[in-house]
């Protein structure tokens, strides 16, 4: 009772950084991480080599092929990867171990956000950059590449990271992989299509504009150069993270 703990024996308290270190270790210790990132790279390279782009000769074809690869495949692969970072914990019940180690649910969500977001940002830029270079080699455009394409690659990476964290948030809310993927696909694929059909059929211009605020279309406009749509995307991601924090904090694990 009178024994005081000296500074030397008091171990350092855990922080957001230590939680993030654990989350990073969890990702890197799974083979599936390599499969997801390798798969995204493979699909990108296949597109760069195979996709014929009869687009407008004033744009760089390698970039439009890379954007197409992201839209059709890469974004879904990386979003699924991000979602599994949490849904796999619920599926294996190892979430209980995570929460016993780190009782602050907000910290768990923020650490996952930071790690998944960073991994997808870096992987997304590398994969896209690789695709652009591979495509440019094929289309004989290497000499045309410059700072503008570097910025585009950065924007694509940011888009992929923001979408991935949104997927992580959805996964935290839904908990199950299949259900989470269904919600994600509705949000990024089906919703814009349906809204566009309805807007066209009934001539609703307002609705037609609203479509641009769905995550994927906001992302396209952001990548296309309209920076303000980056904020729209950021809003979706923030909503996903806050929803995830809310769900983790209020529900029993």
């Amino acid at each position, binding site marked *: 009772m009178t024994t005081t703990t000296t500074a030397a024996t008091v*171990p350092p308290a855990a922080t957001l950084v230590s939680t993030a270190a*654990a989350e990073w270790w969890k990702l890197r210790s799974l083979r599936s991480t390599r499969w997801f990132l390798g798969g995204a790279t493979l699909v990108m390279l296949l597109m760069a080599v195979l996709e014929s782009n009869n687009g407008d000769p004033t744009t760089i074809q390698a970039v439009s092929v890379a954007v197409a690869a992201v839209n059709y495949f890469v974004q879904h692969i990386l979003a699924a990867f991000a979602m599994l970072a949490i849904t796999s914990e619920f599926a294996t019940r190892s979430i*209980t171990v995570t*929460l*016993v*180690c*780190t*009782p602050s649910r907000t910290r768990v969500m923020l650490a996952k956000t930071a790690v998944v977001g960073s991994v997808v940002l870096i992987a997304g830029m590398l994969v896209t950059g690789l695709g652009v270079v591979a495509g440019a080699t094929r289309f004989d455009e290497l000499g045309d590449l410059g700072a503008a394409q570097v910025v585009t690659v950065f924007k694509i990476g940011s888009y992929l990271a923001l979408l991935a964290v949104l997927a992580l948030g959805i996964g935290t809310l839904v908990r199950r992989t299949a259900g989470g993927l269904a919600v994600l696909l509705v949000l990024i694929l089906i919703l814009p299509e349906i809204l566009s059909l309805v807007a066209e059929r009934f001539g609703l211009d307002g609705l037609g504009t609203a479509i641009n605020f769905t995550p994927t279309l906001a992302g396209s406009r952001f990548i296309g150069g309209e920076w303000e749509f980056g904020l729209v995307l950021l809003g979706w991601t923030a909503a996903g993270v806050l929803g995830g924090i809310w769900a983790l904090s209020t529900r029993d*694990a």
Partner: protein
Amino acid sequence: MRTGGRYVDSGTVIRLTNLTKRYGHRTAVDGLTFELQPGAVAGFLGPNGAGKSTTMRLILGLDAPTAGTALIGGRRYPELKQPARTIGALLDAKAVHPARRGRDHLRAMALSQRIPLSRVEEVLALTGMSEAARLRAGTYSLGMSQRLGIAGALLGDPQVLMLDEPVNGLDPDGVQWIRTLLRSLAGEGRTIFVSSHLMSEMEQTADRLIVIGRGRVIADEPIENLLASTGTRVRGPQLRALADRLDAAQWTGPDELTVPGLTPEQVGALAHQLGLMLYQLGPVEPSLEESYMSLTAASVEYGAGA
């Protein structure tokens, strides 16, 4: 005494006060109140579904109680500054990602707590998992998973160890190992809280038993009390005279009487006085299993009918 939520040198007490958890209309844990003291192994017993695991989840803050509190050294679990160093827990040995190697599972736990990675090797050696740690957790037997889980619980060298059914799936060597481990950890002044649905497991490990059924405490006693003699059993060729003198005596065999409430000395003296020959005379010591069955019978019966 403020504990500061760190090392508590005087030992960390767990205190449950009216702890209650309801899921809809079902009450899983119903007003539990007890205190766990350092230096002792408290066994937590009850049939499957009695609320043992839920109680442990409430202590760890995994589930929020409907009412009441569970405090560890005066604090709720989420308020602990160093949770893994205060309380180590094993709830579900299979709650490990099957594709992750055992060592990586522990390393992630250690990293999140800023526990040196060298400690991972120590607990692996302690649990006999050093070799198996390079395999993916999905390949483990239940016994190996239990060992990995116990390694995880020991990672922070905690003041309190809380294990849910730790001997499940262990081979006899493993069972012996865990008994010795728990006794020695309690001997170091730690608080040990271990659940089981098998009374026999507790007989050789626990100092105290908390028996629950349908979410309520049925019994909370030192283990000696539950094993205390309840009467005398006597065998002999002509016990009729003895039976006539003792109202409480019951025939429990053709030549055997059981006399509740009397010691062998008392019964022996009476038999001597009556000049009776005896074959056998001794106390009735219920096995822990029998005490347990009689304690939980009511709650199990009720459970089956509900």
